């Protein structure tokens, strides 16, 4: 069955048709071309013409000229708009002209680097020139490494390898660093939050090494659409960047839809489960022969959907393997096989986390189904973009779940379809991250006194001397420890240590990894861990050794852990009055401890049991935004009502915050205190789950009024009476009518008399 027919049925069916809150048909867009820059090498222009690119799109021409001028650029255009040419053309021209020239390509993952290399090889072969391009990553065999170091014109790697494998050994890369002309950073939008903050520091280190060897490379960055590509590129590279953002690439026709599952209980605001709707829509598409990608928000959801979808298509023999899972924690070989299967068409459906959101080449899929709002407009469009990379009709649909954020988006489709995407936020001066990289940098080259390295760099050098990590001699600071600091710093996490998951059996084997806080939630003893569609039960969690031992099981439930949390203010950075309240940003310390877990039945989501978790309390420092209510804002509320209202207000705020932050909803959490020891008033805290924070709290402080407005809007539009999971949370968990109380508080805060409920 063709895609068009399936779409027609979805639209017409009485069961699904009415639930599409938006159905947008984007027409095909023709290409806009320009001429190649005259400075490009003629051989290259010929080779490109021979490969079917006789002239560049307008954005390619602009970016190429800027790079040839020695100007750093960021190119922001949609998926499959030919971004790679923007950097390959100037790089190859420079190498053709001067064979000593070197370039470094950075991709966020190994998989992307390998893809890119295949494409580059094609072009180099067509050029028939002696240009050596190599990937250098953890998989590069030891005997090949020497050749890469000495002879690679273009070295393709990832930030982690640059961080642990290249920079700390820069003396083996003298040729590269002395002649480094271009640094390419693809998938720039992926470098945000903790990862971006780390990578910004890796680039600080890279530029420091370049200065040592006398080079000053031009940066060519490519990004998917975000609100602040230029700002992000500038923060990441700490130099002026030119923005190229008008795409000249053509696009096939696409249908973009938003689907809100029907309400099944108005009073309680309960809608039909999004998972079930996705299972149906994706099932129809895959059964109809439409190659489909399903994006799910978490590893558990991926595994659940995988089980469901395999079941729904298993009528035909041999088919289950045609639907595959793809997420962090799968081992590289497994991932490569799935990517290849998608490109070659053997894999007809894939259920993925955002691990596949980035530009891994899996070819043009026909349909993309999103289980829930991925957390940002930019990310939504990235996932939509997975459908229809080439010409021809494609379909992308977002199936909203009942979370407040999703309901906000479903009620305001224009927010996604027309609104501005979010900003990519990073905080290269996050204390923990900065210190980590300061150590790595000192290991690489001694620091000169007064040398710049992020905020507080020079003070921290002296502090590191006091801690016996560095030693000052003359005007320089030297690494003075036996360790290899890069090994202790993971770019992917603000947490240094990750846990491994080990399957017990005749031959114990490692099947996955997880960071520390997640481990407390998902790898406690008796937890059900999903991997590859299979269930495992955690038999033993060795907290000290950071190992979880699991055994395969077959049960009809999954587990969900609850945390007990406590928050204390360490320091206020800023405060300002806002109506009958004061807003703050500053630093807090959060203590958390998993307490119990619930066993939740698959399919029906009933609670079928629980258990205690015995793990130590952990704490971390982070940044937070908080709001303390003056008595006027809680006027005439009884204690219970006020408590319920504060609880609802907190939930609303933390639920809409990700709308403005381009972050995962798990990156921020809420804590409410009826009488905060710090402010002395009812206070709502929203804190970052990353130790030290990456800038979300600052952003909330800057836009807090928008945040309050969105929170008010969400609650006011919700159909429920006393609160439901889609707005303030299920009202039956607290006394009074938390929804009404929260709305009263918000109205007071916003200075509006209108109190709808």
């Amino acid at each position, binding site marked *: 069955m063709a895609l068009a027919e399936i779409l027609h049925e979805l639209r017409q069916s009485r069961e699904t048709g009415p639930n599409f809150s938006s159905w947008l048909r984007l027409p095909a867009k023709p290409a806009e071309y320009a001429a190649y820059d005259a400075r490009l090498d003629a051989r290259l222009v010929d080779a490109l013409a021979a490969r079917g690119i006789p002239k560049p799109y307008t954005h390619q021409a602009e970016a190429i000229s800027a790079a040839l001028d020695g100007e750093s650029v960021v190119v922001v255009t949609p998926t499959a708009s030919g971004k790679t040419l923007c950097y390959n053309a100037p790089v190859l021209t420079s190498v053709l002209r001067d064979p000593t020239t070197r370039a470094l390509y950075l991709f966020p993952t190994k998989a992307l680097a390998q893809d890119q290399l295949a494409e580059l090889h094609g072009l180099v072969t067509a050029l028939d020139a002696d240009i050596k391009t190599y990937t250098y990553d953890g998989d590069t065999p030891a005997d090949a490494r020497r050749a890469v170091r000495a002879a690679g014109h273009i070295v393709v790697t990832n930030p982690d390898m640059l961080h642990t494998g290249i920079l*700390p*050994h*820069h*003396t*083996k890369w*003298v040729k590269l660093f002395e002649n480094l002309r271009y640094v390419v950073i693809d998938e720039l939008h992926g470098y945000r939050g903790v990862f971006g903050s780390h990578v910004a520091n890796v680039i600080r280190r890279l530029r420091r090494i370049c200065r040592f060897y006398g080079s000053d490379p031009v940066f060519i960055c490519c990004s998917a659409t975000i609100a602040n590509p230029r700002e992000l590129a500038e923060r990441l590279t700490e130099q002026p960047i030119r923005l190229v953002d008008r795409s000249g690439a053509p696009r096939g026709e696409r249908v973009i839809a938003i689907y809100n599952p029907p309400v099944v209980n108005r009073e309680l605001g309960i809608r039909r489960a999004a998972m079930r709707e996705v299972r149906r829509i994706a099932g129809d598409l895959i059964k109809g022969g439409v190659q489909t990608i399903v994006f799910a928000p978490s590893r558990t959801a991926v595994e659940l959907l995988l089980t469901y979808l395999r079941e729904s298509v298993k009528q035909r023999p041999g088919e289950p393997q045609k639907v595959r899972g793809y997420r962090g924690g799968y081992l590289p070989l497994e991932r490569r096989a799935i990517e290849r299967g998608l490109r070659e068409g053997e894999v007809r459906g894939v259920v993925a986390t955002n691990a596949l959101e980035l530009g891994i080449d899996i070819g043009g899929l026909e349909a993309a189904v999103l289980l829930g709002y991925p957390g940002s407009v930019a990310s939504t469009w990235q996932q939509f973009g997975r459908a229809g990379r080439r010409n021809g009709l494609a379909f992308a649909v977002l199936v909203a779940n009942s979370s407040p954020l999703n309901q906000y988006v479903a009620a305001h489709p224009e927010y996604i379809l027309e609104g501005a995407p979010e900003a990519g936020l990073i905080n290269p001066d996050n*204390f*923990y991250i900065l*210190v*980590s990289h300061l*150590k790595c940098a*000192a*290991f*690489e*080259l*001694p620091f000169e006194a007064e040398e710049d390295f992020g905020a*507080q760099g020079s*003070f*921290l050098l002296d*502090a*590191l001397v*006091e*801690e*016996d*990590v560095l*030693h000052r*001699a*003359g*005007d*320089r600071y*030297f*690494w*003075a*420890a*036996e*360790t*290899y*600091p*890069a090994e*202790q710093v993971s770019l992917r996490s603000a947490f*240094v240590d990750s846990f491994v998951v080990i399957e017990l059996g005749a031959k114990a084997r490692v099947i996955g990894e997880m960071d520390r806080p997640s481990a407390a939630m998902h790898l406690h003893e008796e937890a059900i861990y999903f991997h590859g569609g299979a269930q495992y039960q955690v038999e033993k969690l060795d907290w000290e050794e950071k190992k979880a031992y699991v055994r395969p099981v077959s049960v009809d439930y999954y587990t969900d852990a609850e945390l007990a949390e406590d928050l204390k*203010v*360490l*320091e*206020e950075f800023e405060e300002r009055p806002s109506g009958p309240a004061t807003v703050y940003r500053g630093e807090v310390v959060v203590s958390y401890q998993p307490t119990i877990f619930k066993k939740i039945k698959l399919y029906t989501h009933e609670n079928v049991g629980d258990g205690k978790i015995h793990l130590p309390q952990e704490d971390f*420092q982070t940044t937070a935004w908080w709001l303390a209510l003056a008595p006027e804002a809680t006027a005439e509320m009884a204690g219970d009502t006020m408590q319920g209202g504060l609880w609802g207000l907190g939930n609303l705020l933390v639920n809409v915050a990700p709308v403005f932050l381009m972050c995962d909803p798990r990156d921020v959490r809420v804590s409410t205190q009826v009488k905060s020891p*710090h402010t002395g008033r009812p206070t709502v805290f929203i804190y970052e789950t990353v130790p030290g924070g990456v800038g979300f709290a600052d952003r909330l402080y800057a836009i807090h009024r928008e945040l309050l407005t969105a929170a008010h809007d969400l609650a006011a539009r919700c159909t429920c009476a006393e609160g439901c999971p889609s707005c303030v949370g299920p009202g039956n968990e607290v006394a009074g009518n938390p929804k009404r109380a929260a709305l009263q508080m918000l109205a007071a805060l916003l200075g509006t008399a209108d109190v709808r409920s």
Partner: protein
Amino acid sequence: MTTHSSDPRALLRDRLREALGTSTRAGAPVAPRPQAAPAIRFTRPAADGQDEKRLGVAAHLPGFWQDTPVGRVFVVERRFELEHEHGALPLGRTLDVAPALLARLGRDAALAAVDLRRVAFLDTETTGLAGGTGTVAFLIGMGHFLDGHFRLRQYFLEDLDQEEAMIRALTDYLADFDGVVTFNGKTFDMPLLQTRIAMTRNRRGLGNLAHLDLLHPARRLYRDRIPSCRLQELERQYLGLTRVEDIPGWEIPSVYFRYVRTRRFRALLPVFEHNALDILSLVTLAAHLAAVWRGDALRDAGDYLALGRACEHDGTHDEALEHYHAALGCDDLRPVERQECERRLSLLFKRLGRQDDALTLWMRVANRRENRELYPLLEIAKHHERATKDFAAARAACERALALLDVYHARMGYARVNADREAIMQRIARIDLRIVREQEKAAKPKRKAKPVAAQEGE
């Protein structure tokens, strides 16, 4: 502002400690160690009236400040008589070693061209084993033979900012040499020095030095016989030297860091001694290995066997045969050594075309009651199959091999059992085919082909 502490610096420092955790702290405190240094005594008394604790390297050790265009560096210098006995051997013995022998030890023809008086025996002490640009060689010891004595120089990094000068002095000095002798230098010391040279933007570099890393010949010789091939183990076992109160290698980085931070030099003295002992051991180890290779210092069966192996590798087959025979004649030959020796010897016979000698040896091994090895039986089978065309004997040898495989290898759970069995079965099948062909050939002139052969002809 509300904070836990009123001093922002103190707060930052607390957070720093927390961020660093405990892992970056230097190792556990090291107890002061006695100065007793039986082999070499460097220490010279401090001048009167000075605070002994604060005295630097120059006050404790003989040597001189060397000026370079990029600063000065302290070089400890000592001379040793050629007769100086380091363990069982005098240092001067090494001067007798022919460069050609060095080339055999190092399996590197470039070593045959060196003049032993222009070879530096080199060893470094470093700030760690982690590698990378943050690991520094703070003490580089080098010794060489000069004017009838052995001169030991130790380039010392008095503080971390003197590295340019140290490396400059080192590369200038090494420019006059043909080669270096190290222990594990191919993996560790020389790459590390290359890194330090690059870090200090030194343009001269190490030049074209031939390099003999004694770890490799030592390992070839002693690999299976001693618990480890560490230098100190070799000293103890073969050079007649036992170190007393030597500082363990893993302690060295933290001792140096403590010195750098406190400027108390005395605790570093054992490191200088350790380094000097290492270098003197390089000298005598070279002489010892050369003597073994020359056939002068063979002590036991293991020596003969190892030397036989080395000769076989070098292509000096007659010598190899001689050493294997000698090994087999030793009383102290261990069973595993006997097995290896017989196997090597028999296969070498075969390679040299001495079929009868090979066969005799295979028979001897195969017929020994405790034999567990397949190879002699398989070799016998091959021999009969190819040379004597005695297929029945070839088949019988294969049958014996299969039996051995089943009664011993299979029961012991050897990993290769199935592959071995398959190979033997194939061989038997091939032999059977040839038996049939032979019979066919023999039958032809007399009668028509037998049914079996007729089938085959179809």
